[in-house]
C-alpha cells in the first residue's frame, strides 16, 4: 500500500466531515439568544483548544515509548503530534481571543485557564526548540520527553482550572468533570459540538499522518547523505 495513501484519505475524510460541520454550524444549529452569531465561534474554538491541549498526552506517550523501545516510529509520532498540537493550540488561543473581544470586551485577560493555555503554548515551543537544538539521539529524546511530561501536567491543570480557581472562562461543560448545571442544555448545540470535535480529531490525525510520513522521508534523506559521504 502506498504510504502516502493514509494522510490523503484522512484529509479527504476531514474535508467531508468539515462540510457537514459547516452545514450544521451555519444552517442547522439555532443562533444563541444572548451571544448572537459570535457563539458560532464556539464550534471551532472548543475543538481546536481541546485538541491543542490534549495533544500533549500522545506527545508524552510517544516520547516515553521511544525511550523504552528505541523504535524510531514512536519518536516520529511524538514529534508529529507536537507540531500538529502547536498549530491547534495556536489556533485555539487566537480564536479564543477573537471570541473574548465581543463577549468580554477585551482580547485577553490573565485568567487561570487562559494563562495555563498560554503556558502550554510555550511548552510546545520549548519542545520544538529542544528537538531542534539539542544533540540528536537519546539525549534529545530524554530532554524532549521531560518537556512533554511537564506539558501533560500543565494540560491536566488546564482542564481542572475552572474548578480549582475563580475563572472568567466558562465552566467545563463536557467530559467527566462537567457539572450538570454547566452542561450544555441544547441538544442541537451538543450534537454540533460533538460533530465538530470528531471533524477536528480526524483533521488532527490527517496532519499527524502527513507530518509522520514527511519526518520518515527527512530521516531517509539524512541516512542517504550519510551513506553518500562514506
Amino acid at each position, binding site marked *: 500500500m502506498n504510504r502516502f495513501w493514509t494522510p490523503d484519505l484522512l484529509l479527504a475524510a476531514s474535508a467531508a466531515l468539515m462540510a457537514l460541520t459547516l452545514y450544521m454550524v451555519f444552517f442547522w444549529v439555532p443562533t444563541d439568544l444572548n451571544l448572537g452569531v459570535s457563539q458560532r465561534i464556539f464550534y471551532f474554538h472548543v475543538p481546536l483548544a481541546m485538541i491543542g491541549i490534549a495533544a500533549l498526552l500522545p506527545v508524552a506517550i510517544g516520547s516515553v515509548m521511544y525511550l523504552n523501545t528505541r523504535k524510531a516510529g514512536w519518536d516520529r509520532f511524538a514529534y508529529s503530534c507536537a507540531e500538529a498540537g502547536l498549530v491547534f493550540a495556536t*489556533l485555539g488561543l487566537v480564536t479564543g481571543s477573537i471570541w473574548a473581544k465581543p463577549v468580554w*470586551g477585551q482580547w485577553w485577560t490573565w485568567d487561570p485557564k487562559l494563562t495555563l493555555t498560554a503556558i502550554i503554548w510555550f511548552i510546545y515551543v520549548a519542545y520544538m526548540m529542544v528537538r531542534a537544538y539539542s544533540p540528536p539521539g537519546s539525549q534529545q529524546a530524554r530532554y524532549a520527553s521531560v518537556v512533554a511530561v511537564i506539558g501533560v501536567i500543565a494540560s491536566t491543570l488546564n482542564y481542572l482550572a475552572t474548578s480549582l480557581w475563580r475563572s472568567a472562562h466558562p465552566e467545563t461543560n463536557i467530559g467527566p468533570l462537567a457539572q450538570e448545571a454547566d452542561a450544555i442544555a441544547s441538544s442541537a448545540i451538543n450534537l454540533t459540538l460533538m460533530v465538530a470535535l470528531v471533524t477536528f480529531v480526524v483533521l488532527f490525525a490527517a496532519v499527524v499522518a502527513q507530518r509522520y510520513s514527511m519526518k520518515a522521508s527527512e530521516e531517509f*534523506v539524512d541516512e542517504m547523505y550519510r551513506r553518500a559521504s562514506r
Partner: protein
Amino acid sequence: MTRCTAVLRASVVAVPALAVLLIGAAALAPAAGWGSAVEAASVAETEAPEVLPQESEPESDDGPEANLPYMFAVFIITWAVFFGYVFVMSRRQNELRQEIDALKQRLADSEQEAGPRTE
C-alpha cells in the same frame, strides 16, 4: 504527477475554505434567514464576569448579527492557517521525494564508478 498530488491535497483544504466564504455570503443575505431560530440555551456567560476588569463594553447587545466580523475572522484565520500548513507540508514532501530520487541516482552512479576499481 507529484504536482498533481500537491494540488489535490491543497484542494482538499481549499474546498471547505471556499465553502466557509460561500456560506458566509449566503448567510449575509437576508433571504438566508440569519438568526431565525433564536432560542438556544446559552453556552457561555453573557455578561462579562465580575473578575474581568472592564476596559470596554461587550459588543454582543446590538442584535444577533453585530459580531459577524469576529465570527468570519475566526473561520478565515483557521482555514488560512490549515491551508498554509498543509500546503507547506505538501511542497516540502515533494522536495524530499525529488531529493531522494537524486540521491538514489548519485549513489547508483558512485557505486557503478567504484565497481570496476574493486575488481
